[in-house]
């Protein structure tokens, strides 16, 4: 499945006030999640330079899902220096959403050893301001010791762990015929990171019929006698510590952790070079099954109704409209929140007599959008008094009952006053006659698009469980140890 990747170049403001900041045109960030068209802007930040505000706009809203802001090293000569940056979350207008002292994100200096630091940027229209941490803007600056450069850009949202060399999601079959999946990440050397915490969140249960439990394993490669400590928290001071032997074999970190209700946190501290794997037990499934989708017309409005027979991890719906059944545009300005199974949306931005086509898109919590293939159409008309799909004899009866009436009379029916002149008379009857026999709504194509859903299913598999680095602290640089080969978890 081809995936669309939207990229955005970060705006650099306050340029006049920050003369030392040079913006090179290297624009060569590494596609951290296979975003083929990943582009970026190179920033050079030196000691004493003011922070660079980086705002995110535009494409996020059109992307239809979340994006990641990634900082990766540049490989061009005019961006030679790779070092530490300080990322300060400004989403709430403060510098200290997280602890800015711990918000150092280190990039490495070679092509193969990069450290893409993901800042999850959710589309507020899809997720709401409260459902996720929205990092709509960040600031970057140097660590006040040297001048650094990095390419900064946006890539498509792929909630994966901090991928180091060779890291990727893997799968193994479970006993029920479904899938377990795990991500295996390896902190190789060199690294100045020796304390890293991870949040495991169940961000897309809808793509799996699972028990909501993850399974954890780990493997350490540190030389003998030097331990790695695992904390079941994101705070190494408060968390209970487990010493992990460095024996280069896989160990069970935990057998079951329920991630249905809340994320869980882990922190590895001590030294680098270890693998962690988290498996999720579940069977892939389609998040939303649409059981009906229809449109009915009224006077200067069209009502779209749909029902679902299944919803899992559904962030909501979008409605797309077209007048030629080719070019569709989204109608709703904010995502239509899920309310489980029965929905009604009224489109008032329509003109009587024009035929409108509608399609429905569902968006999962992981940001995956699925356009359903059913196309409902409707022609707004003042003559559709009973809301049926045809102007017929029943509409005539309704109008006839109100014939001769004015407001305040017992048989007054404002719907029957088709021309809105305050009286139901022959003129209204003539309007009804113009439309009589017209079909005003229907379904253009009710065939399920199984191929689309199948592709979506594959996409959702990749987003089922996310492991997110939530803090990396630059404490001390441990000795360099060769990166071990990737290990497969076998169950």
């Amino acid at each position, binding site marked *: 499945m081809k995936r669309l990747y939207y990229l955005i170049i970060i705006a650099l403001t306050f340029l006049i006030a920050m003369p030392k900041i040079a913006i090179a045109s290297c624009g060569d960030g590494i596609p951290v999640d296979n975003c083929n068209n990943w582009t970026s802007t190179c920033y050079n930040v030196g000691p004493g330079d003011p922070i660079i505000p980086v705002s995110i706009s535009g494409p996020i809203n059109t992307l239809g899902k979340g994006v990641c802001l990634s900082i990766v090293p540049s490989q061009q000569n005019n961006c030679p220096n790779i070092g530490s940056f300080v990322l300060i979350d400004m989403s709430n207008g403060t510098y200290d959403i997280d602890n800015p002292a711990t918000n150092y994100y280190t990039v490495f200096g070679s092509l193969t050893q990069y450290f893409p630091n993901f800042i999850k940027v959710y589309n507020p229209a899809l997720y709401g301001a409260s459902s996720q941490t929205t990092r709509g803007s960040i600031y970057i600056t140097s660590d006040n010791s040297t001048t650094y450069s990095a390419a900064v850009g946006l890539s498509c949202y792929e909630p994966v762990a901090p991928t180091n060399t060779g890291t990727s999601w893997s799968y193994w079959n479970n006993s029920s015929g479904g899938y377990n999946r795990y991500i295996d990440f390896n902190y190789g050397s060199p690294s100045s990171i020796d304390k890293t915490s991870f949040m495991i969140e169940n961000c897309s249960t809808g793509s799996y019929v699972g028990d909501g439990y993850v399974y954890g394993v780990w493997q350490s490669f540190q030389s003998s006698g030097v331990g790695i400590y695992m904390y079941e928290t994101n705070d190494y001071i408060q968390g209970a510590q487990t010493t992990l032997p460095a024996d280069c074999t896989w160990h069970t970190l935990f057998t079951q952790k329920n991630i249905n209700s809340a994320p869980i946190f882990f922190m590895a501290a001590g030294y680098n070079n270890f693998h962690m794997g988290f498996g999720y037990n579940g069977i892939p499934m389609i998040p939303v099954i649409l059981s009906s989708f229809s449109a009915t017309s009224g006077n200067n409005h069209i009502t779209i109704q749909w029902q679902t027979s299944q919803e899992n991890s559904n962030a909501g719906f979008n409605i797309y409209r077209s007048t030629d059944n080719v070019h569709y545009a989204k109608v709703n300005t904010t995502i239509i929140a899920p309310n489980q199974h029965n929905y009604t949306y009224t489109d008032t931005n329509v003109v009587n007599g024009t035929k409108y086509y509608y399609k429905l898109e569902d968006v999962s919590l992981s940001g995956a959008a699925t356009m359903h293939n059913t196309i409902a159409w409707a022609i707004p008309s003042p003559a559709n008094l009973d809301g049926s799909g*045809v*102007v*017929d*004899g*029943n*509409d*005539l*009866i309704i*109008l*006839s*009952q109100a*014939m*001769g*009436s004015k407001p305040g009379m*017992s*048989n007054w029916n404002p719907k029957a006053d088709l021309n809105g002149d305050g009286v139901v008379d022959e003129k209204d*009857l003539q309007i*009804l*006659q113009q439309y*009589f*026999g*017209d*079909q005003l709504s*229907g379904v253009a194509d009710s065939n399920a698009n199984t191929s689309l859903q199948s592709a979506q299913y594959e996409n959702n598999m990749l987003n089922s469980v996310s492991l997110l680095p939530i803090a990396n602290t630059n404490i001390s640089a441990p000795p360099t140890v060769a990166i071990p080969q990737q290990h497969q978890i076998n169950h």
Partner: protein
Amino acid sequence: MGKLNTKWVATIMVAGFWVFLATACGTSTNKSASNTNSTVLLSTQQNNGNLVVSVNVKNISDLYGAAVTLSYDPTVLKYQNAEAGGLLNANNAQTNFLAAEEAGANGVVVLGYSRQGIENGVSGSGTIANVNFSVLNKAGSLVTITSIVLKDSKGNIINTGSVNPSINVGN
């Protein structure tokens, strides 16, 4: 006198029972009226080489309006026009009649016939509409009532006793 009083009491109780029943029925919130003795049926006749299909009702009560949809085989019949039957014109009441081929549907005629304003319905038997077809060929085919809505003077749907939905117009 005592016997007379007992008789009167009994009579009043029985009458009260029936008044109660009538009142209970009259205050029903059901939006449909039952007219179990009524029948809807189609009939045909020839008219100068054309075929006239009539939509008829029998034993109807308080009929205010009718909405009828007919389907036919467009390879056999061609719709020409339709005229109101005389049923709803009782007492020279104002009526409205509309007929048209359904747009986008091949072989469907939509009919509407109604009294207008605040009027009582019509009771009895008669014709709702006469639909004129020219005959394209003499192959056997059906003209069918695909939907019919009969409403009384209160706007309630009349549940008819039976509907004979089709008639064979072939040889």
